């Protein structure tokens, strides 16, 4: 059974569309939720945590509707986007309170809070008021409160925004660790490198619609109309380029830097083969061969490219 199930789900706010007729299943493990600003990521997360109600269609989490349904939402850990806090509380009070709100009892709530704070690396700062926290600490403490009741599903809305590289690194590791322990994670982020470091399973939305779902490289392969771009750093770049121009399977060649050749092709496998043998037979020396557009960032760019700015 899928963890989150969306069936013809639509959500609008007055005239503004949040999600538009979305049907999808989010499976176990880590899923990256990607999309430009305003694409509907937060809407989807709001619906999944029972804070928003579908305008049409349905959403099911663990097989049940999450709206006003504590038996489902208490199994979810939610880290909201932005900066919602009771600023005067200390980090520890904040996490303990939310642990108790999840039904944990005095001592065990405190223990769970200490544990969650420890896991997010906030032990040293837990005694300070949240209003004095830096952005990175705020993210960490938000994640601590999401973890405190050992949920089965974590919904993390932009958990990296404002965090410093160390926090990003540590949090990424934490999420991978949690996933390995069997926690399902739905995470949205603007920094695609980090999502890529955690998972290859993506759900990309734009304008409230799903534009792609699945493994990044599989998605890239299925983008048939987009020629693949291959980058070769080679000592005799002009010689290689002149050769490539002659091939039928190559549709474009450029030399952005003196030692680099970029070329486009629609059949990458054949191109790699022929490229390698050409390099060998013509006595060139190569420094690097790489697909220039198989990264998540490139795929994301292809999928969400908008005509106007």
């Amino acid at each position, binding site marked *: 059974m899928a963890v989150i199930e969306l069936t013809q789900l639509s959500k609008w706010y007055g005239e503004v569309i949040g999600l538009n007729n979305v049907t999808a299943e989010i499976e176990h493990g880590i899923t990256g939720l990607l999309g430009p600003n305003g694409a509907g990521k937060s809407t989807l997360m709001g619906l999944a945590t029972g804070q928003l109600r579908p305008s049409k269609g349905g959403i099911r989490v663990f097989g049940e509707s999450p709206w006003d349904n504590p038996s489902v939402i208490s199994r979810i850990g939610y880290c909201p986007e932005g900066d919602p806090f009771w600023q005067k509380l200390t980090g520890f009070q904040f996490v303990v309170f939310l642990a108790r709100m999840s039904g944990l009892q005095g001592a065990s709530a405190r223990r769970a809070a200490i544990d969650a704070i420890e896991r997010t690396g906030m032990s040293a700062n837990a005694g300070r008021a949240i209003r004095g926290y*830096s952005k990175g600490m705020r993210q960490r403490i938000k994640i601590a409160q999401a973890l405190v009741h050992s949920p089965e599903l974590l919904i993390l809305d932009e958990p990296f925004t404002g965090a410093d590289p160390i926090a990003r690194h540590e949090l990424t590791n934490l999420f991978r660790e949690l996933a390995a322990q069997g926690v399902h994670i739905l995470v949205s982020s603007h920094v695609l490198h980090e999502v890529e470091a955690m998972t290859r399973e993506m759900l990309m939305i734009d304008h409230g619609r799903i534009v792609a779902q699945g493994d990044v490289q599989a998605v890239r392969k299925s983008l048939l109309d987009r020629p693949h771009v291959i980058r070769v750093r080679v000592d005799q770049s002009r010689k290689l380029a002149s050769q490539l121009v002659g091939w039928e399977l190559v549709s474009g060649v450029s030399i*952005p*830097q003196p030692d680099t050749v970029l070329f486009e092709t629609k059949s990458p496998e054949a191109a790699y083969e022929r490229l390698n043998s050409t390099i060998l037979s013509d006595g060139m020396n190569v420094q690097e061969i790489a697909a220039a557009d198989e990264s998540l960032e490139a795929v994301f760019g292809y999928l969400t490219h908008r005509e106007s*700015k």
Partner: protein
Amino acid sequence: MTTISGDRVNQYQRWQGALGKSHWTWPAIVRNGITLALKHNKTRIVLLTGGIPAVTAVGVLYVLSLLESLVGTDEAKGMYDLLSAMLRINIHGVTRLVEFRDVLWRSTFLMMTGMQMFWVLIIVARVGTPLIANDLKHRALPIYFSKPVTPATYLLGKWAVAASFVALITLVPSFAAFAVSLLLTDGPGTWGQAARLANDLILTGMFVCVTSGTAIIALSSITSDQRYVTVGWVAICLLPMFAQKIINESLPSNATMGWIGCISLRDDIFVVAEHLLHVRKGLAATSLPAERFAQALTRPIDPAKAATVLGVLTVSAIFFSWRRVVRFSRMAAAA
């Protein structure tokens, strides 16, 4: 290496020009503050209706000048009653009003100032409260202090916005009323008297601008939530006034007031305005029954005490807002 995206054909262009003196950035803040405030229709309505006291004053002065020639007639009787009530001076049976022109003009303008206090309360609540609070809320201070603006220039600019709106409610209509009345009537006696009255009017208006302007700047710098500033301002204006009223009424009329009479800031301003406009002194110098005025006006409060209360408030307000702005200008880094 990066590339310029296709739709960005504009190259960055350098600018060959000279920047003006940094000390003169505060007029830009004033201009901006006034423009922003005037975007709201409610502000414009308050400003427009702010002319009502001045129009009333012109009306009173015009009627007074008419009365000079109507003394003793039946038509005049009703007007005498009305004016006595408005000016709080018993002019019943005064046959030679001409002799009292100067003091009657002065008390008319005092009455007008009293009425204007209400509009000052409103306009400051509308325009003054967001001045610094909004910059704090939207963290706009780093923009000011990344340009050649100093805390002093900033405060001066913000203060000038509040003060100009108060002036638009007090000084400007007062002066307009004065000018119109001069044209419509015979003036407050001699030219010398007119000039002195004009001078006193300006002093009074400036006094109101300075006190209320600094007060609101200080209030506005306390918190980043404009609503609290508004509530605080209204409370500071009204609560002492009510308290004073209840105290005045429940105490016997012969009780000495001293400092406890200076609780109400509005009354303080009124007493100082009275002093600046020389109404009581003018009445004492004439044969008009001055003690009645004294009774009707308010309890006998020493203008020196009232001025001290206001002065202390103003100075501490300036000091306080200065401290706040300097602190906030450095806060970005401390975060």
